């Protein structure tokens, strides 16, 4: 969903890389490209302005050290700034200490509140919680029926307002109704309203006062433009927002709204909507989103990380080995361990452009553990002479590593393929081997 923003950044970095050094002018141009990319992603104008100003300040004040390329520094700064905005960890729904938790779902018309209520109920029910759904949307035709249908699908209970036309009275009736029931959650859907609509904002305030919800969730349409912040702010100022649900991310929107809302409200985005069905709600991971926004092209940062861990000498050694295509299992093991030092394979993949499109790569860290165990079960001779590993040796390796023989077979095959592939790759260019090799993973 954020690929386009990623592509943009990719171009920016390629551009800086091409120029070789960080002059005042090319920082300006690079910063400007970042600005345009963010604006095209619908990030709020002021948020973008502040963001690029911060980045620029940090870049210009920075001394260019010998070992790190200027663009690596640039990328690192953007990475840090973006990560800071996106926040660090995913945050659960607020929950009452004892008894029933009240959730209130608000937003403008058509943002997807009612569907989100259904999805939340479905999610909570699947966690064995008892949920009651309540609609206070007495204005949009059939809004109440819509929630009723969703409640049934989600296996949640539904409160029938029985024709009551005053949202505040509905809330009071519900409080009465749930008193001796054991609901874990009661979710209140509200009518959509525009940020400028004072009477309706007042109505919402009244509902809030009566209900005293544990959490107010603001539903934002991820396709929104520059008015998104005004809307979010208006809801926050009027009733106070505790968390955000970002909807309709299954389309091709670049979703810059996420950045703006997070930066200005400082309220966590808790869930994202990824489709029309009840199952299409996912817990939002800010850190995942941040690396995804950057991931789009953060090769440089990866290389920087790699350099720090591996060291230039090691990189050179590998380069030679690979060029000669006499890589053995010792080298392979060594490399595995470097990767482990650098973080989880998933994290590393998230930093590679386009890696999210690759299939059949062992993103599973468990798989890597197996691979390591198998190599460790090989004798030094076997590691240096992989082609000598015959069926009886394979059996022994399997036994020693707690793996199946076919896993050993697969590893040997993959290793051969990799060697061949590397030979091909390195026949053309021998530079940037390390990068190539990293990107093979």
């Amino acid at each position, binding site marked *: 969903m954020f690929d386009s923003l990623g592509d943009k950044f990719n171009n920016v970095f390629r551009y800086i890389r091409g120029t070789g050094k960080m002059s005042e002018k090319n920082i300006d141009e690079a910063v400007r490209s970042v600005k*345009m990319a963010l*604006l*095209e*992603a*619908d990030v709020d*104008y002021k948020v973008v302005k502040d963001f690029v100003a911060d980045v620029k300040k940090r870049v210009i004040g920075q001394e260019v050290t010998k070992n790190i390329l200027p663009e690596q520094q640039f990328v690192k700064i953007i990475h840090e700034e973006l990560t800071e905005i996106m926040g660090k960890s995913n945050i659960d729904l607020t929950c009452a200490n004892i008894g029933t938790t009240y959730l209130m779902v608000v937003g*403008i*018309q*058509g*943002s*997807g509140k009612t569907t989100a209520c*259904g999805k939340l109920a479905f999610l909570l029910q699947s966690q064995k919680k008892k949920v009651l759904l309540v609609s206070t949307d007495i*204005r*949009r*035709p*059939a*809004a109440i*029926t*819509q929630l*009723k*249908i*969703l409640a049934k*699908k989600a296996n949640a209970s539904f409160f029938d307002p029985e024709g009551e036309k005053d949202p505040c009275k509905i809330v009071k009736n519900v409080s009465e109704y749930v008193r001796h029931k054991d609901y874990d959650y009661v979710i209140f859907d509200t009518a959509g309203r*525009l*940020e*400028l609509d004072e009477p309706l904002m007042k109505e919402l305030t009244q509902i809030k006062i009566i209900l005293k919800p544990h959490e107010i969730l603001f539903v934002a*349409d991820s*396709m*929104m*433009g*520059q*008015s*998104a912040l*005004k*809307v979010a702010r208006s809801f926050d100022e009027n009733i106070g927002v505790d968390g955000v649900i970002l909807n*309709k991310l*299954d*389309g*091709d*929107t*670049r979703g*810059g*709204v996420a950045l703006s809302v997070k930066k200005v409200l400082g309220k966590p985005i808790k869930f994202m909507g990824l489709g*029309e069905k009840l199952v299409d709600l996912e817990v939002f991971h800010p850190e995942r989103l941040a690396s995804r926004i950057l991931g789009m092209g953060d090769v440089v940062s990866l290389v920087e990380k790699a350099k720090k861990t591996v060291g230039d000498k090691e990189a050179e050694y590998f380069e030679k080995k690979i060029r000669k295509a006499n890589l053995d299992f010792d080298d392979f093991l060594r490399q595995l361990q470097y990767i482990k030092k650098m973080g989880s394979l998933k994290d590393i993949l998230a930093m590679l452009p386009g890696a999210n499109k690759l299939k059949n790569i062992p993103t599973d860290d468990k798989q890597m553990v197996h691979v390591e165990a198998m190599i460790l079960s090989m004798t030094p001779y076997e590691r240096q002479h992989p082609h000598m590993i015959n069926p009886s040796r394979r059996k022994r390796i399997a036994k020693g590593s707690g793996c199946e023989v076919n896993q050993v077979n697969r590893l040997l095959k993959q290793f051969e393929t990799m060697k061949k592939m590397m030979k091909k790759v390195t026949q053309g260019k021998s530079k940037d081997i390390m990068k190539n090799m990293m990107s093979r993973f």
Partner: protein
Amino acid sequence: MLNLMSRLKKSLQKTQSSLTQRMSHIVLKNTIDEDEIEELEEILITADMGVPITMELIDSVRAKVKASKDMTDDIYGFLRESLRTYLPDEWKETNKVKVLLVFGVNGSGKTTTIAKLAKKYKDEGRKVLLAAADTFRAAAVEQLRVWSKRLEIPMIEKADGADPSSVIYEALEGMKARGCDLLIIDTAGRLHTNKNLMDEMSKMKRTIAQHVSSSELRTQMILDATTGNNGLMQARQFDKTIGIDELILAKFDSSAKGGFIFSIARELKLPVKYLGIGEGVDDLLPFSRDDFIEALFER
């Protein structure tokens, strides 16, 4: 009837004062500096005009200022003229239309706009029939049925989950017998990136094409005025798969300025026909290019 222009202005007012203030000091002198360029950029970007158009306009303003040192026209007038060139000429109503096919992404305002259109045509003396072809979303049929009852306009419906094309087929077949001369079709909201749902939409259009000539069908895309740059992507895809005749911009009573219609007009040459300015059945304004721009830059 209320003066339409004043209603439009009222709905735009809240953003205007600040915008006008900011514009006017640029206008007062004939030079422009980088701060002012940036201010112009902010005005255009925050109106959701999009990056390409904003850059185009800024370039032309720069060029204009450079070319005429003794420039007597103001920048505001120049901008207004430039913006006019993006939007196609005024749209003319033809009386031939027999079928309105209404579509758009989820929650853009289709069903509500259909109620507004149905009322308008009924008031004009047309015999309107509604088709509830959103058989997917929970209570979508019921929502349209409420409007059908309120407006006393008949409606064709089938069970939830029925093939939308079959609802349309039945409605088209039933038009004559019911003495109706205009069919308005409500469809389920769909994201333009969902291929299956876009194919479903093409099928609906083919069903219609078997009954009426292409001049008798009008396809209308409903866009949410609060949309950003995604508006262009939506229109692009719907236009490619179904073909759009005209656009309607709903929720224009929000603080959003809907500037993305300029990007759509620039690339796809599509006219905007109405603005939705509220949830009531009369909250529909005919779109006028000059009024839209005038109101946007009103001093």
